[in-house]
C-alpha cells in the first residue's frame, strides 16, 4: 500500500486550499503574530520530521552538510513538490540559499505586492517543514524565506552546527 501512495499525486489546488486553511486556522485562533508564526513553524517541523523518518532509507549515509543540502534540494524537493530546487547557492559560511523560481504556494496566492507583507508568516509552515528535515539529519538550522520577486522564493538555510 505504501507503494501505491508514493505513486499517487495530489491536485495542487487541493493542497493549496488545505495549506490556506491551516494558515487561517492558526492566524484566526492565535493571540499575536509571534505566537502564530511559532505555531505554524512547529507544525511544519513536525511534518518535516515525520517525512524524514519515512525517507531515511533512501537518504545518503553521510555527515557532509553539503551532501545533505543537495539531497534536500534534489530528492526531498522532488518528493514533495515533484520538481527539484532550481538553484542552490552558498556563502560558504553555513548559509545555503535554496531558490525555487516558482514556488507553488506563492503562485497560488497572488502576485500583488500587498501579499508580500504577509508572506513570511504564510511561508512559516514550509520553512518549518524544511527545518524539520534538517533536524532529523542532525543539523540544527534556521530556515527563513525571502520573496522579492514572487512567485520566486528563496529559502535561506542558516546552519548553526552539525551535531
Amino acid at each position, binding site marked *: *500500500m*505504501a507503494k501505491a*501512495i*508514493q505513486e*499517487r*499525486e*495530489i*491536485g*495542487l*489546488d*487541493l*493542497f493549496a*486550499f*488545505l*495549506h*490556506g*486553511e*491551516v494558515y*487561517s*486556522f*492558526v492566524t484566526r*485562533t492565535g493571540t499575536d503574530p509571534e505566537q502564530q508564526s511559532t*505555531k505554524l513553524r512547529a*507544525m*511544519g517541523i*513536525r*511534518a518535516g520530521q*515525520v*517525512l524524514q523518518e*519515512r525517507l531515511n532509507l533512501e537518504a545518503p549515509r553521510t555527515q557532509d552538510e553539503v551532501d545533505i543540502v543537495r539531497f534536500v534540494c534534489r530528492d526531498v524537493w*522532488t*518528493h*514533495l*513538490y*515533484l520538481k527539484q530546487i532550481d538553484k542552490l547557492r552558498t556563502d560558504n559560511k553555513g548559509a545555503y540559499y535554496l531558490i525555487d523560481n516558482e514556488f*507553488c504556494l506563492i503562485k497560488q496566492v497572488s502576485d500583488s505586492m500587498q501579499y508580500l507583507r504577509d508572506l513570511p508568516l504564510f511561508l512559516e*509552515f514550509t520553512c518549518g*517543514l524544511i527545518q524539520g528535515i534538517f533536524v532529523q539529519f542532525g543539523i540544527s538550522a534556521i530556515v527563513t524565506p525571502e520573496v522579492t520577486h514572487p512567485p520566486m522564493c528563496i529559502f535561506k538555510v542558516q546552519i548553526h552546527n552539525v551535531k
Partner: protein
Amino acid sequence: MARLKASYSEAFTKKVGTELFLLTYGSLVAQLIQDYEDNDEINTQLDKMGYNIGLRLADDFLARYPQTKCVEFRETADVIAKFGFKNYLGFVPVVDKWNPSDRSCSLFFDHNPLAEFVELPPEHASLWYANILCGVLRGALEVVHLEVEVKFLQDVLRGDDKTELYIRFIRKIEDTVPPGED
C-alpha cells in the same frame, strides 16, 4: 460527461507529492488534538475547514467546466468519485449502497484516504480522522445547489474493514434571486 472527460486531464496537471499533502494534514490534526481535547469539537473543526475548501474547489472546478451538469444524484456521486477524488486525491472510491430512492449512497475506501501510517491515540479513538472530507463534499455540493448530509460510518483506523463515507441528498437549494435582478 464526454466533453468533461476530454478536457479534464489538461487542467488538472498541476500536482504535488502525496506525502506533502498527507503530512500537512496530519500535522493539522495533531495540532487540533493538542488545541481541543474533545473529539466532537475536533470533528467539527475539521468539517468547517473542509467546508471552506469545498466552496473554493467547486468554484475552481466550475470555472473550468461550466458545462458540467448532473441531472440525477447518481450522476453527481459518479462525478465526485471519478473526477473529484481521481483528480484531486489520485484514486477512485467505490460508490455503492444506494438506497431504493437513489437519495443516499456510500463511498468505500480500502484504506483511510488521508492517512498513511497513522495511529489514533486511544483517547481519540472516536475521532474521524478524515472528517475534513465531509466538509469538502458538503461545501462543494452547496455551490451546485445541493444540500447534503455527509458523514463517516466506518474507518479502517478504527479497526473497520473498510472506510465508508455516507452521503445523503437532502434537497435542492433554490436560487433566491430577488425579483428584478438576474
